[in-house]
Every structure is written in C-alpha cells, then in structure tokens.
C-alpha cells in the first residue's frame, strides 16, 4: 500500500508540472481570480512582452477593493479608483477574461463570489493576488495569495512556482458553546500561535467543531489562516461541502455532478498520515474573542481585561504591546467588556456571507443601534445582498438603524470612502486590526458578526451570550 498522505499532499502532488523535491515546483493552477488593485501592472507586463493569457477560461475577474458601497447609479467619485476599475474592464476585454463588473448581478468580494458561483471546488489549486485567497481552502482546495509579478506569471503560464510548504494540523476538540462562532475559533488559534506561528505551513483544520460548521463558517476559519502566517488553510470536503456546491451556477451538473462528487470524496487525509506540526484547541472552553491591539494575535476573550505590557513574554513583545495600547487608547487592566464603540462594521470576505448576516440579524432584530453609534452592513456580494433582501434581513437591519450598503471590501481596508476618523473605535467583522487599516488613527476590534451586532445595539463591546439569553426566539 502507498504511504498515507494528507489532504495537502494529495492536492499538491496532483498539480506538480515539473520540479519539486528540494527545488521549488511548478504547480498548475485550476482557478485564477483577479481583482482591480493587484492586476493592472500584471496585464501591463503581458502587453509589454507581447504575451497572452494562457487559459482565459480558468481566469475570472471582479471589482471589489475600491468600489463605492453607496449608490451605484452615481459616477465613481474617486478619479483614481475609476481609472483602476476602467483598467480592469479594458484588460478583461483585451485578454478575453470574464469580468463581473460593477453592474453585474454576480459582482462582489472575490472570495465571496468564487464559492458562491461554484467556481471554487475541492482538490483545486486556486490563486489570487490577495492574501485572503486562503478562504477557498474551506472546500479542500489549495488556495493561496500571490503578488502581482506572480499574477502575471499565472496569466502567462497558468502555473505558479512554489516551494513545498510544511503541514500543520489544527484540531479543535469539543463543541463551542452557543454564541461562540467560527470567527472565535480562528481568533483563538491566532492568539495561541501568534501571527507568525504558521509561517511556511499549510494548515488543515480538523475536529468535531470544524465538521459541524457550515461552509460559511469554514470559509471564515480558512480566511484568517493568513493572519497566523500560514500559506493556506484547508478543510477536507464532506457532505456539507457537496450540499453547498450542488446546483451552483458553475459547479458540475447532470452526469458530471455524480462523477465530480465521487472524485471529490478522495480529497481527504488518509488515516495515519503525518503532519509536520500539530496544534490542539479546546473549542468547548472558548468564550467569544475580541482583539485589543494592532495585530490579530493581540486577542483576548471578551471576559478578559486589557493586558499589561509588563506581563508580555519578551522585551520585543513588551514594546509592541505598549505601542499597540497607545495606538488603541487603552489602559492595562481595563475590562474589554464595556469599551465604548463609535462604529460597527459588518462585512468583508471574512464575515459578509448570507449566514453571517442571518446570525447578526438574530441580535439586531427588534433592537436599536445605540445612539451615537454608526453601524453599517456591507454584504459580500450582490447575490448575498439580494438573498438577504428576499429574506427581509435588510429591513431588520435598517429598522434597527444599521446602514444597508452595496457589496465590496469597503471598510475592511478603507480604500473607498468608508473609513474611520482618527480615534474612532470600531467593532469590525473583518480580519485585520493593523494601525490605520480602517482609516488613519482608527481603532479596530475584530469580532464575530454576533459580537459586532451586540456592540452596535449596546454601544460598547459586550458578551453576546448574555444578550442572546435575553432574546429567546432565534431568527427563523
């Protein structure tokens, strides 16, 4: 019998075109996703070298990063954003790449629309000029972010040069309590191993708590793998995966569906296969997580207090803790629960899927956004938006005083006009709390959609579990 292999080993080995061993391998790419910010220089490079896109039919483009989430009928106010979007339209036409443009019903954040259209499938190698490409690993694909030179390389060759990463199993033991979600599972991991804890590794998430997650939850977990420094994150496909994909616009259909499903079930880790590293996390013991600093590793439980830099493990940590607390305007020992927020952002490729909005709506329903708080909901895609409107979620949010916006990356990175003012404190469902990420001087606390909705209605960071008990009827 052949040696037992991990899911990662299988996907990697199935895609090696040449090389490998100790040298980097040339890997074949099954799906290349493209957006407006990291692609213009790549297309320009092709043009200058007189090269074509090798497999336009394996390439899909959308606009998301700097689109306005306001009224789409208005011309784009920012001239330079308009130029970048126009460049992608031109490049897509010239190189015959399919583009979901601003007025397409499929437009949305690249990591939301890939899965939603059924483009993302088990066993694939997927790349995109964006670090959160790790999201697609939720389907048992090997998916990772690349730089613009590599985007150009993939466009020209449909291949990517990669040195083989190591593997790490992240096993969640037990089931999380009600109110503790996928976002909390992954924040707890980053808190444990740090933002460089998985550098050079591909993570495979396993355990009961992962199996029980919806595809949306698995995508949230895989999405933030990069925040632990990992090259990618993966979850082996199962019935949940297949049920999600069945009937999607670009998923195999008819007789091809049966065959694909059979082939896909082989993308799992064999019994006895070894990982290079392992982490175990007790999911049952977790409370909702919240970041207190300026790196996703600076995470605590909502029941904790702001840490004292003096207690940090090393001098370098003491310095970065001090810097972070100063930036965040926080004092050591302050309880996290009760911190007043000015803004709430529900969105991003981490948490703007229909399931995330449904979850947040269970808290928002029948309540009001606290006075003085500006809260916005930015669906991940046009489809998510339409689905939410069909279910009446938009009304739950707007009745509660949330703004209901158009899809895009929005305040996840603040490239459009959705930004924090200096000193504003924000509960955000996005993935990065770096200095200035959501606007210069803005103070970001990363939380789950449930926790963000709770912060909006209470006007401060709170433990959503208490709030949930006060509202017995869950959203149907």
């Amino acid at each position, binding site marked *: 019998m052949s040696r037992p292999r991990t899911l990662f080993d299988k996907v990697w080995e199935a895609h090696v*075109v040449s090389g490998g061993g100790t040298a*980097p391998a040339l890997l074949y790419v099954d799906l290349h996703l493209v957006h407006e910010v990291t692609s*213009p220089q790549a297309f320009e490079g092709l043009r200058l070298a007189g090269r074509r896109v090798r497999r336009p*039919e394996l390439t899909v483009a959308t606009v998301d990063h700097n689109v306005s989430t306001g009224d789409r009928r208005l011309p784009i106010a920012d001239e330079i954003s308009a130029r970048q979007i126009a460049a992608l339209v031109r490049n897509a036409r010239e190189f015959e790449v399919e583009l979901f443009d601003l007025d397409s019903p499929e437009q949305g954040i690249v990591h939301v629309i890939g899965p939603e259209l059924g483009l993302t499938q088990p*066993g694939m190698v997927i790349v995109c000029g964006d670090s959160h490409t790790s999201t697609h690993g939720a389907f048992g694909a090997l998916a990772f972010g690349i730089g613009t030179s590599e985007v150009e*390389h993939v466009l020209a060759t449909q291949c990517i040069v990669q040195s083989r990463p190591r593997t790490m199993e992240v096993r969640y033991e037990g089931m999380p309590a009600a109110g503790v979600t996928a976002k909390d599972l992954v924040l707890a991991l980053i808190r444990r191993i740090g933002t460089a804890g998985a550098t050079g590794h591909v993570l495979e998430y396993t355990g009961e708590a992962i199996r029980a997650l919806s595809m949306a939850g698995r995508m949230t977990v895989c999405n933030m793998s990069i925040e632990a*420094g990992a090259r990618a994150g993966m979850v082996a496909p199962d019935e949940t995966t297949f049920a999600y994909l069945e009937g999607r616009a670009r998923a*195999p259909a008819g007789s091809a569906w049966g065959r694909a499903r059979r082939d896909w079930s082989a993308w799992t880790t064999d019994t006895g296969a070894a990982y290079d590293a392992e982490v175990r996390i007790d999911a049952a013991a977790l409370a909702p997580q919240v970041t207190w600093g300026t790196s996703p590793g600076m995470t605590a439980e909502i029941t904790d207090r702001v840490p004292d830099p003096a207690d940090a493990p090393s001098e370098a940590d003491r310095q970065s803790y001090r810097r972070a607390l100063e930036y965040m305007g926080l004092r050591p020992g302050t309880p996290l629960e009760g911190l007043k927020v000015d803004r709430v952002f529900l969105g991003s490729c981490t948490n703007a899927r229909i399931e995330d909005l449904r979850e947040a709506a269970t808290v928002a329903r029948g309540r009001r956004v606290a006075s003085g708080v500006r809260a916005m909901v930015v669906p991940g895609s046009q489809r998510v938006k339409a689905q939410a409107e069909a279910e009446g979620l938009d009304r739950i949010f707007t009745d509660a005083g949330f703004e209901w916006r158009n899809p895009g990356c929005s305040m996840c990175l603040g490239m459009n006009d959705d930004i924090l003012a200096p000193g504003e404190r924000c509960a955000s469902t996005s993935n*990065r709390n770096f200095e200035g990420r959501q606007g210069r001087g803005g103070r970001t606390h990363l939380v789950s959609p449930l926790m963000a909705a709770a912060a909006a209605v209470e006007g401060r960071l709170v433990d959503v579990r208490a709030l949930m008990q006060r509202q017995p009827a869950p959203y149907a």
Partner: protein
Amino acid sequence: MQPFTSHTGRAVGLLRANVDTDQIIPKQFLKRIERTGFGSALFYDWRYGPDGSPDPAFELNRPAAAGATILLAGPNFGCGSSREHAPWALADYGFRAIIAPSFADIFFGNCCQNGLLPVVLPEAQVTVLARRAEADGEYRITVDLTARRVTDGEGFEAAFPFDDYRRDMLLQGLDEIGKTLLEAARIAAFERRRAALALGDRA
C-alpha cells in the same frame, strides 16, 4: 529585473516586530496602475504627521538614515496583505536589501521578484548591525548573494540561507515567466492529463 549579486551600502534600523504591508504602503496609494512612483508613500503614516510634514522621530527620517540602501527590520516583516506595492515602494525609495530575523511568506517572494534581497539573520545579529549603523554615519554593510554572506568593515561576518532557485534568478536578473515558458511542452502535457480529472473545467 535588476540582477542582485553583491551590494554595499548604508543601513537603517526599523526593529519593530510584525511590520505589516499596510504600514509599508498604506492603501490610499494602491490605486496607481504602474509599478513605479511608490517610494514617496513608503511608511507614509509613520513618516509624515497628519499635516504632511516629516516626523523627525521616525527611524527613516533621522539624519543618519539618509541614503540608506539596506533596511534592518524586526521579525515577521511584511506580514498582512499580499500587495506587491510594498516591495515596489521599498525599492523605489532606494532599498536594495532587507535584513530581518524572519519575513512573511508572500512578502519574501514578492521581494525576490523585484530584485530586492530579503536576508534572514538571527535577531541578535540584526540588532548588532542596527546599533553600529546608528552609531556611525559612515558605517557600511555588504550583502553578498553569491557567497550568501553579510559582512561589515568591523569584523562582522554571517552566512544566511537562500534557496538555489531564487538565488539563480536574482544573480542573473531572470524573468521567471520566460523561465517557465521554457517548460511549455510539459505544461501542455500536464493539461492533457488534467483533462481527465474533474478540476474546474467549466461547462
């Protein structure tokens, strides 16, 4: 791509941990559709105060840092977003090499694509180099990729690991696409095999 064989230059220390690419080049500068012109926005939020004037306390603004071509950085340098604008900005500003205890994966690769050499040395050694650079405006460091070695005029000498594939590319200033296209026959053969797998060929 500009080849990198060996480089001697002045250095500046920026020893904070986990410097992310949002700090290296804030997003408001990502809207250009060219590869050049990012140097003036490098570390923008740290380099300039809210009124746009240079912050004298920021490491790169100190007089001793003028003309530095080697950046001495902290662990996990370049984490966060995959934006290649970060190495473009560093190179455009004038840096030829970055020496740090560790780099984020994507950033490391992006540097190599742009002739900006990422060098991994233990934290204690980076600190020594930074201290010397700060103390002496005439201090020079040599980063030699051919020999995979960092030296200075004061007796410092350390070897650094660097994989052969990327080293060859950098030494020769090779275009990776051109290199891969030499394998066109293998790619085509793979595509014929792949057609038998259910991997994303859309209806």
